[in-house]
């Protein structure tokens, strides 16, 4: 590939070249792509209902909320941080959006802004405490997990806020060109955020901070400001997830998003994000989320009990990290 790469070494195998190409061009590990394709192939063989456009849209629709949260998780974990409050903040945002839209009767754009804004505000608080008070992110976001959930229950009085304005419901249930709106919003967000993480200075610095704070600081990156913006971004994305959820079920549910943070982190890790920071891509995370989505959808179509689905996803998580570690050990042995 480069003149220096061939010195005294045999030409790399096709597999190796594919691996390198996949990572360089798509920022996705070849292994996870193969797992996704094989899994889809198996499901297609086992269930006659799997291979259809409407089922494909179903999978994307079912993945949309978790997918948006997983984007947030990729950014934060990629920077060496952690956001355990994703699910709760999503619940809070949904309730705030529904409250503004239903109880105050304000128009859709304001309700949407309130929803995403509430998430961003919670994330800003997370980021400020992490960077200014030097409390570990694990603790801060664990605290926010409780605070946001409690606040959601307080605002909604523990009840589901039902009956959103139709234009808001459209964001969750509308189907322009028979594509569900949440899928459109989710896929657009994923593409934009993929470009941000992979191709902008902001994204490159995010991974560099997660890789080595020292290197990033030496390179003149303002780490505190960057981290705070990351938590704010994470909160805003959780807010977007809350919006999709709320619009989809046409109700602000204060219990929405319970344990979603763990599922989102799982998707990011399966997709190749390094739990300790420094590596990750949105496309990879999307592959991770789709692996889980396909697994769930396929097992649902086969009418397999939900308990086995949880087992299967747990197994895939461990397997993915095993493959990752195996590759890493092989690489550093050079």
């Amino acid at each position, binding site marked *: 590939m480069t003149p220096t790469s061939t010195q005294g070494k045999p030409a790399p195998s096709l597999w190796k070249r594919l691996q390198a190409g996949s990572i360089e061009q798509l920022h996705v590990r070849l292994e996870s792509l193969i797992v996704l394709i094989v899994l889809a192939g198996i499901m297609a063989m086992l*269930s006659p209902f799997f291979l259809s456009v409407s089922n494909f849209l179903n999978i994307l629709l079912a993945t949309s909320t978790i997918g948006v949260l997983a984007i947030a998780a990729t950014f934060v974990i990629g920077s060496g941080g952690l956001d355990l409050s994703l699910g709760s903040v999503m619940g809070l945002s949904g309730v705030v959006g529904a409250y503004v839209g239903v109880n105050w009767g304000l128009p859709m754009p304001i309700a949407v802004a309130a929803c995403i804004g509430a998430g961003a505000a919670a994330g800003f608080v997370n980021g400020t405490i992490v960077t200014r008070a030097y409390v570990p992110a694990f603790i801060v976001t664990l605290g926010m997990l409780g605070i946001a959930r409690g606040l959601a229950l307080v605002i909604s009085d523990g009840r589901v806020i039902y009956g959103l304005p139709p234009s808001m419901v459209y964001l969750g249930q509308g189907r322009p060109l028979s594509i569900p709106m949440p899928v459109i919003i989710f896929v657009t967000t994923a593409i934009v955020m993929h470009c941000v993480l992979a191709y902008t200075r902001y994204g490159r610095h995010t991974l560099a901070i997660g890789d080595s704070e020292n290197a990033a600081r030496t390179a003149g990156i303002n780490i505190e400001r960057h981290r705070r913006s990351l938590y704010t971004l994470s909160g805003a994305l959780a807010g977007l997830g809350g919006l999709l959820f709320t619009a989809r079920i046409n109700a602000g549910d204060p219990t929405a998003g319970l344990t979603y943070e763990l599922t989102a982190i799982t998707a990011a890790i399966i997709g190749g994000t390094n739990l300790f920071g420094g590596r990750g891509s949105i496309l990879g995370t999307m592959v991770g989320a789709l692996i889980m989505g396909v697994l769930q959808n396929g097992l649902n179509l086969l009418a397999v009990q939900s308990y086995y689905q949880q087992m299967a996803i747990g197994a895939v998580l461990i397997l993915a990290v095993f493959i990752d570690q195996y590759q890493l050990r092989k690489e550093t042995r050079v």
Partner: protein
Amino acid sequence: MSRFSSTFGATAMAALFAVSPAFADGEYAILMKTLANPFWGAMGEGVEAGAEEAGVAYIVQSVESDQAVENQLNVCNTMLERNPVALVTAAINSTNLLPCLKAAQEAGIKLVDLDGNLDPAILEQEGIDITFSIGSDNVKAGGQGAEYMVEQLGADAEGPVLVIEGLSGNVTGQKRAQGFADTLAELAPGLEIVASLPGDWDRGKAASITNDILTRNPDLKGIFAANDGMALGAVESVYAAGKGGEVVIIGVDGNSDAVKSIEQGRLTASVAQLPYLVGKQAVENVKVAVDGGEVEEHITVPTLVLTKEVMDAGTEPLLEYVK
């Protein structure tokens, strides 16, 4: 090696799950909450028994917890891919399945509400017509609890009574507590409900509530809890306070733990719902509807006050359905 191990893993997993029921025309799709809850488990068993008796093909799906609102919607959408003739759902709340129900209705699939989880007003607003809803009457179940409490304490009894509600905002718990309160006021005005607090379906929380109220009202006469788990929590607190046998404690559900406690003479009674019967009758009625017959819009499955006497006698025909 790594790439193959992952592929093999996936293949093995898929093979493990390949033992799925045969795909058949005219399938009934039944969507439960979580089968981990014995109540829904029993209802699932009733559905299976009913379907086998009626000779119809069916699939039963459930979700991992009673909070998996979105996932239940996802599973519901996936079920539609199989083109069932009927969709029988126990929705986690009154709104989460609405988009799926709407799509099912457009596809001409018959809809059934298991255990009255859907709100008729919301259904009307959304333009969704369900074929029928089936379940116990929660208001009546609460009323039965009150009747039995008055039977035990006497119509002219006086003193404080505690009501432990369900999750705040949950319709089922509200109906049971309301039914209890209304009937109690009617039958024994001397018994005063001194507190009606949400126990969030949580045994531990119910125990703490009972503790607190016993401190305030040591002469507590009766406790009504909106489910058995909370009633059993209350039992523990009452016994720990040394007042075992002095307080009439009544729960709702008739689950196996409650049955054991009643046999031991600790829990006074449980208004048993008969989820098995609900599931069984649901399928039977779906068959009638699918075959073009007439079905009532609201089918009420009776509830049964389970006491030590009833169980010892063993003559009550509905006892068969207490699981």
